[in-house]
């Protein structure tokens, strides 16, 4: 009999089953911490969770009330920083991946990008303080904080964009060059349209990073408290300081005595919720763009 199950085959099948379940268990265990964290936070934050918390301003020396000014401030910082780092990062990545020859200068650029991606955020903070607050004379301001966040997110955006560009097969480029297309015509017609999902995902993931970091903005433009009208969408000028969620959470948990216990937890829930929302957007967007993928 050709397809008989020998003991050897049976043993192999058993190993296969065990391996599959062990690997599945490891992967599934990733859900546990996330569920626990969210469950714990929501439970502690429950008394404060309401729409009012979102749109109210802090009251009674930040002991009560909502987080509106911090929420708006975070949006300001994230939008401004990515408005700088996304275009610069994408264009730099296009240069490095599509144009750069392998010479010492481009190797230095590559090295710089890789190393910048590994610099801790506190170092970015000190750099931002020196470069933007003092040297460029932007002072403690939204501009300085956004630029610092931009410097922090830039190398990661470059790296993720390069990866997306590199995933477009070289044969497509060669086919374009063969018919007399310039590099730019090739990039425009074939490379960018087919890497855009990866590029956008990389950028969106940096939104949550920019929103979550405390150190870079604490040194350059975020403040503990700023009086803001409830529901005011444009409370800040760019050369002023602003509040931010990550900073607010830090302040509430360490600097404000007698704060209602559920308030910092509610802030954390909001921050986490925003991150999950942004990441989910990235996944959906990627799925949508992938579905239109062309090969």
């Amino acid at each position, binding site marked *: 009999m050709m397809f008989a199950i020998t003991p050897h085959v049976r043993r192999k099948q058993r190993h296969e089953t065990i391996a599959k379940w062990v690997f599945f268990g490891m992967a599934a265990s990733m859900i546990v911490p996330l569920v626990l964290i969210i469950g714990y936070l929501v439970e502690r934050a429950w008394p404060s969770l309401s729409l009012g918390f979102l749109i109210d301003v802090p009251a009674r020396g930040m002991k009560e009330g909502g987080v509106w000014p911090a929420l708006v401030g975070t949006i300001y910082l994230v939008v401004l920083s990515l408005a700088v780092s996304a275009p610069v990062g994408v264009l730099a990545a296009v240069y490095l991946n599509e144009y750069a*020859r*392998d010479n010492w200068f481009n190797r230095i650029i590559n090295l710089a990008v890789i190393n910048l991606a590994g610099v801790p955020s506190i170092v970015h903070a000190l750099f931002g303080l020196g470069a933007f607050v003092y040297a460029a004379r932007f002072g403690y301001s939204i501009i300085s904080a956004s630029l610092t966040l931009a410097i922090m997110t830039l190398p990661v955006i470059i790296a993720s964009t390069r990866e997306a560009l590199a995933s477009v097969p070289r*044969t*497509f480029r*060669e*086919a*374009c*060059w*063969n*018919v*007399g*297309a*310039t590099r730019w*015509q090739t990039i425009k*017609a*074939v490379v960018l*349209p*087919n890497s855009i999902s990866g590029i956008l995902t990389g950028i969106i993931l940096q939104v949550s990073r920019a929103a979550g970091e405390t150190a870079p903005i604490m040194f350059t433009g975020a403040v503990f408290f700023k009086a803001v009208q409830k529901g005011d969408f444009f409370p800040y000028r760019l050369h002023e300081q602003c509040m931010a969620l990550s900073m607010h959470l830090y302040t509430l948990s360490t600097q404000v005595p007698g704060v209602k216990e559920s308030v910092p937890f509610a802030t954390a829930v909001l921050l986490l919720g925003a991150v999950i929302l942004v990441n989910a957007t990235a996944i959906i967007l990627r799925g949508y763009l992938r579905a239109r*993928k*062309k*090969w």
Partner: protein
Amino acid sequence: MTCTPTIAVRDLRLAYGQKEAIRGISFEILRNEIFGIIGPAQSGKTSLLHCLNRTIDFTPEARVSGSIRVDGEDVRQTRNIFALRRKIGMVAPLPVGLPLSIYDNVAFAPRCAGMRRRSELEAIVEQCLRQAALWDEVKDRLDSLGTKLSGGQQQRLTIARALSHQPEILCLDEFSIAIDPVTTMRIEDVLKELRRSMTIILVTNLTQQARRLADRTLFLWKGRIVELDHTDIIFSGKPANRQTYEYVNGIFG
């Protein structure tokens, strides 16, 4: 067939880093002839074509010396390599449908050259797809993706794209490895038709294909020319060189 050379190669050498791929070859290709190039794997056939349309520029470690003149102009000195590449249609061995619609695949090159008029583009698309023996199969779905065609259809799409910039010289690098014999024959008929208006360089591993189509055949081996002569003589059983005889008769050691 007139006897003016359209391509003149003089002492061409090419090395990838330390590795020599072409070791000093000289020959001429005449206008409106079908010029066959045969030779075993790694003999430098594809590399030669890359030198011809300067796509060798995209391989940084490649070093070229010698000269290739196309209609008197040295391609290694030319200012406008995009015009050069448009003058030379190139069909790579593996079919590449660009991730664009079938229409855009063919209209891509004319658009890159600056053509914008819809009527002109449509005329070119239809003409090239007809020449590549693909029109009847795709005329009702020109806006579907080129990458979703079958391998053989994509190869004909590649040929249509190579014709779309109205080249004077058409290079085919083992064009038939992805297509069935019937389609191959149809394209071979197309080539016989096209030679009236252009020069064709046919690189092939199927020596019989060179025998069927080529006016003259060049046998390349390890980056050197073993023999270049009229196809009849190469396949006559009495070529000047014994290696040629052995190769075309499949007793190459």
